[in-house]
């Protein structure tokens, strides 16, 4: 019991307590996002750009599917997600609220997961801005529902991975621009290495190593993304994205815990 007040000191009890801690951080982050105009500007910019580019392609191709939307998405996300995540830790460090956050009775993993949950929720909300396009496709014809669902699953998974990368890189610095550049660089590498032409160029540099092919097969996100967006919901592809998201979040937890020097 606390003195004088009789306020009972509660621990951070078990799984329920862990989730409650994550929820507390998540709710604060979401509140902060929607309190500022940045979230709305981001939402409108992403929606207009992604849907706008797709609609242009849609009128040219005149095919009832959303493949061009999902094909374009990784490249767009490699820019938009770092813009979303760049301030998540860097801003806390710059305005010194990092000290406040670290001295709250919450685990570093709760802080990281709470921030991830808020950003992911907002990302999924942004992704929903394309749902009117889905409605339009159903009005105009009969799109492949399975393909649509798998496309959204792929988009949700690659988003989770890029957000984790963004959170990790934001924790490395107190400068948002630096965080954005590093994060965008990482995301681009994961996207660009998934192109056959890039793999060919890298292979050509040192043919004996076959580094381009190696990166394409074992490193890049794009082969996994394309397989999922193409309608094949393989466990290995889902595992790739989940593992990458967990890996970078774990790196973030290690980095933030290490900040208490």
């Amino acid at each position, binding site marked *: 019991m*606390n*003195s004088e007040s009789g*306020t009972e000191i509660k621990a951070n009890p078990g799984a329920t307590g862990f989730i409650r801690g994550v929820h*507390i951080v998540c709710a604060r982050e979401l509140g902060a996002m929607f309190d500022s105009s940045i979230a709305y500007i981001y939402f409108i910019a992403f929606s207009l750009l992604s849907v706008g580019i797709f609609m242009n392609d849609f009128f040219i191709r005149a095919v009832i599917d959303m493949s061009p939307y999902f094909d374009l998405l990784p490249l767009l996300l490699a820019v938009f997600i770092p813009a979303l995540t760049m301030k998540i830790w860097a801003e806390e460090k710059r305005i010194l609220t990092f*000290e406040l956050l670290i001295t709250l009775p919450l685990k570093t993993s709760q802080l990281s997961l709470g921030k991830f949950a808020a950003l992911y929720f907002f990302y999924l909300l942004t992704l929903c801005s394309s749902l009117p396009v889905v409605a339009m496709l159903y009005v105009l014809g009969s799109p492949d529902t399975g393909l649509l669902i798998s496309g959204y699953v792929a988009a949700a998974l690659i988003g989770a991975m890029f957000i984790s990368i963004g959170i990790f890189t934001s924790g490395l610095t107190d400068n948002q621009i630096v965080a954005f550049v590093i994060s965008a660089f990482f995301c681009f590498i994961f996207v660009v290495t998934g192109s056959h032409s890039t793999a060919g160029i890298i292979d050509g540099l040192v043919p004996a190593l076959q580094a381009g092919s190696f990166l394409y097969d074992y490193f890049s996100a794009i082969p996994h993304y394309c397989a999922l967006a193409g309608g094949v919901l393989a466990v290995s592809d889902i595992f790739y994205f989940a593992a990458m998201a967990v890996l970078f979040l774990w790196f973030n937890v290690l980095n933030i815990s290490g900040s208490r020097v």
Partner: protein
Amino acid sequence: MIKVWQLSKSFGKNSAVDSIGFNVEPGEIVAFAGPNGAGKSTTLRMLSTYLVPDSGSISIDGFDAVENPLAVRNRIGYMPESNILYEGMRVDRFLKFIAKAHWLSPGQISENLDWVVDKCRLEDVLYKKIYQCSKGYHRRIALAMALIHKPGVLLLDEPTHGLDPLQVLALRDFIKSLKPNRAILFSTHIIQEVTAVCDRMLVINAGKIIAAGTNLELALKAGFAPWAECCLDQFTPAAKNALVELKCGNLIESATKPDGSIEAVIGITQPGLEEELEALVNSGLFSMKSFKTAGIDTESVLAELLRKSPGDEE
């Protein structure tokens, strides 16, 4: 409540805190005084678990700050020197966030929020965003943040920094009102604060505690000659003899007042004079109407202690 033992912290080759140790008991307000850069904030940051000590140990309410930082964080209220507040949040939402992070139930949050809003006088800004509040309110919000879970240990880093004189006086009174059952450690380089609020003082310089004790103890340690002025009744020759033979002081002069009482001035040579006089009162030698110490200029005492400290000689 707060136990610090052999605590050290370096940043690169610079030793910020060098093997310090102290205790703060419940019901005690202890000032951490010293010049800028002496190691006050670094020590408080280690106590708050923000920094990890290089060596030594910190125990708060029986919990080790390194081994069990979450338990320690739940038991302390920490008000850092800089305003580390989420400026974009509304004051009430910010305080509720801090309360939730300390695992308070909805009922406790509501009750404690009302309490800190009242005590820190935040009614006028409760529904404003923090960036819309003045600097004085920023400090009060930071104090409310430290108090929202009613912790048993308060760590306040320069709590009156940036406040106007009236706010400073109000805050000092408020801190004193928090004293029962709480261990309060606050850092300051404003000497009036030390004399106005604290029971004891830890003087730190160049990362080392160079002196610790009450104002009187520190004045004696610094080589000052404080005295006590007391008003005594029933002053008999036996009583005068007892005053001459005091262990903790020397009778300097005594004068008879028109009402027959005696005004005695006693030079203090060691702490414990008041207790010694009270013992004489209890033995029936005389009765004591008043007692007050004088000749302690805390500012000069602190300056003298710092001048004598090894860090200053370097």
